[in-house]
């Protein structure tokens, strides 16, 4: 027998190889990629058409087109949905046996989580770029912040999604049930999405919804992304980044703890 002396790779190599693995798997399932992009595209199309008349209401910033208002919110929203998919992806890995194989190898368990998180960030970045492209080419997205402001908004959405992805990875590491996560995740996101400044100005919401929207973190993330893309006085960007960072740290900590537990009993 050939005597091979491979006794484990370095931490960065493990993360890099595992991230590559997830991305490669993604490329090999183009249909899945197509649908993951289709959903936010449909949302962009429908919402831009349905809510277009909002621009003529009293609370709407005068002189702004609805697509300019909507797109930064869609970016944040897409990143959020993507983070849920990140957790579900981990559960699927757990159930199809690949993670059992990884566990029998001399690698650190946290690298598996980090790779999941990173590869999903890359996927999300791709989704967001596509959203912007469509926004510009099809719907006439012309933000005052220009390319730079728009990319900054994309970056912010990415950071928010990345942080939430740690939360869902943590939930996945503890709960380990894809269907449950899908249902509960969607139930949690749906109201969060609408009870915010994402689609209409908060001032236009009924009083009780305004109260919710004002404490909804998504409102702050959307407002921050919007201020970057539209070159408004930048509000809450630092706050959003700091909050995301804090969420990510707690999420990652919980994820690694939960993931250490044995796979199956």
């Amino acid at each position, binding site marked *: 027998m050939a005597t091979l002396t491979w006794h484990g790779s370095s931490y960065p190599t493990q993360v890099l190889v595992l991230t590559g*693995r997830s991305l490669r798997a993604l490329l090999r399932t183009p249909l899945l990629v197509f649908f993951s992009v289709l959903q936010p595209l449909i949302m962009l199309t429908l919402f831009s058409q349905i809510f277009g008349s909002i621009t003529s209401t009293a609370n709407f910033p005068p002189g702004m087109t609805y697509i300019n208002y909507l797109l930064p919110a869609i970016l944040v929203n897409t990143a959020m949905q993507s983070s849920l998919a990140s957790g579900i992806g981990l559960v699927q890995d757990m159930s*199809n046996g690949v993670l059992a*194989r990884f566990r029998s190898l001399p690698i650190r368990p946290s690298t598996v989580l980090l790779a999941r998180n990173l590869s999903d960030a890359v996927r999300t970045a791709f989704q967001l770029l596509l959203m912007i492209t469509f926004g510009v080419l099809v719907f006439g997205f012309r933000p005052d912040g220009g390319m730079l402001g728009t990319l900054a908004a994309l970056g912010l959405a990415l950071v928010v999604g990345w942080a939430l992805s740690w939360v869902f990875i943590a939930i996945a590491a503890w709960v380990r049930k894809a269907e449950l996560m899908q249902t509960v995740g969607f139930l949690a996101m749906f109201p969060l999405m609408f009870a915010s400044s994402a689609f209409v100005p908060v001032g236009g919401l009924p009083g009780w919804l305004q109260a919710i929207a004002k404490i909804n973190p998504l409102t702050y993330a959307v407002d921050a992304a919007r201020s970057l893309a539209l070159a408004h006085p930048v509000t809450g960007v630092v706050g959003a980044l700091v909050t995301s960072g804090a969420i990510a740290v707690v999420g990652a900590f919980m994820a690694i703890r939960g993931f250490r537990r044995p796979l199956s009993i």
Partner: protein
Amino acid sequence: MSELMIEATEVSKRFGDVHALDGVSVTAKKGSVLGLLGHNGAGKTTLVNILTTMLPPSGGSARVAGFDVVKQSHEVRSRIGLTGQFAAVDEQLSGHDNLVLIARLLGASRKQAHQRADDLLEQFDLTDAAKRNAKTYSGGMRRRLDLAASLVGSPEVLFLDEPTTGLDPASRLAMWEIVEKLVADGTTVLLTTQYLDEADRLADTITVLSQGKVVASGTSAELKAQVGQRTVTVTLDSASDVDTALKAINAVGLHPVAEGLTLTTPVNASRDLATVVRALDDNGLEAHEIGLAEPTLDDVYLTLAAN
């Protein structure tokens, strides 16, 4: 001196109130095959999980390739291969990419990893399917890829958890030949199985587990001597006949066990079949069905339970 590659001492594992393993001790010398025989729920997989560092034991200690499975789990993991009951391959990747992935994680360079993947694919007759997604593989191909994946790092100790369950006879035979070749090359193998013939063919020593305890261990020959080579099964027409037959066969020095209308009697020689028939005949009993069967795992349990 022969080196012990697997050494479990009084290993126990509790899940709540359930004792999945209760003071199990096994050893395997370098280059030998240890067969773990037992039904579902006997504790085979739990022991494999502990020895492969996937589960911490509740009590006792274990060393694999000379390293403690709890305190030196990383050292253990870099010297073992594991093929579980369910093929642990990434279905979204090709066979080739699956193996490259493992090799890279083990520390191979890109070039080495591709080389190793190609070698293994050829060895396991998967070269033609190398570029296809593992999702499209048949059950036998998937198992072979899984086994190949656990051999990427040329492990010193290989754990095979029911490697042939669900395989067709030809794939089963192919798997046996692969294992024999590995052992000839010096790999130590721990194999769990529900099939006596598999343990018989591959294992140097066999440990029988039942409800988390070792109920027998030894070489295949020793175990068979203990079990009896064969069993005689007799099916009768009524429950009262069963009682009479139990007494009659006991009286001639054999130990039948009744289940419903069927009596199973472990026997040592073929003339014991005649003894059983004579005992029935002497008592005016007519058997509905009578047969001689090769020992199965059930018989091992029956005999061990009867002793």
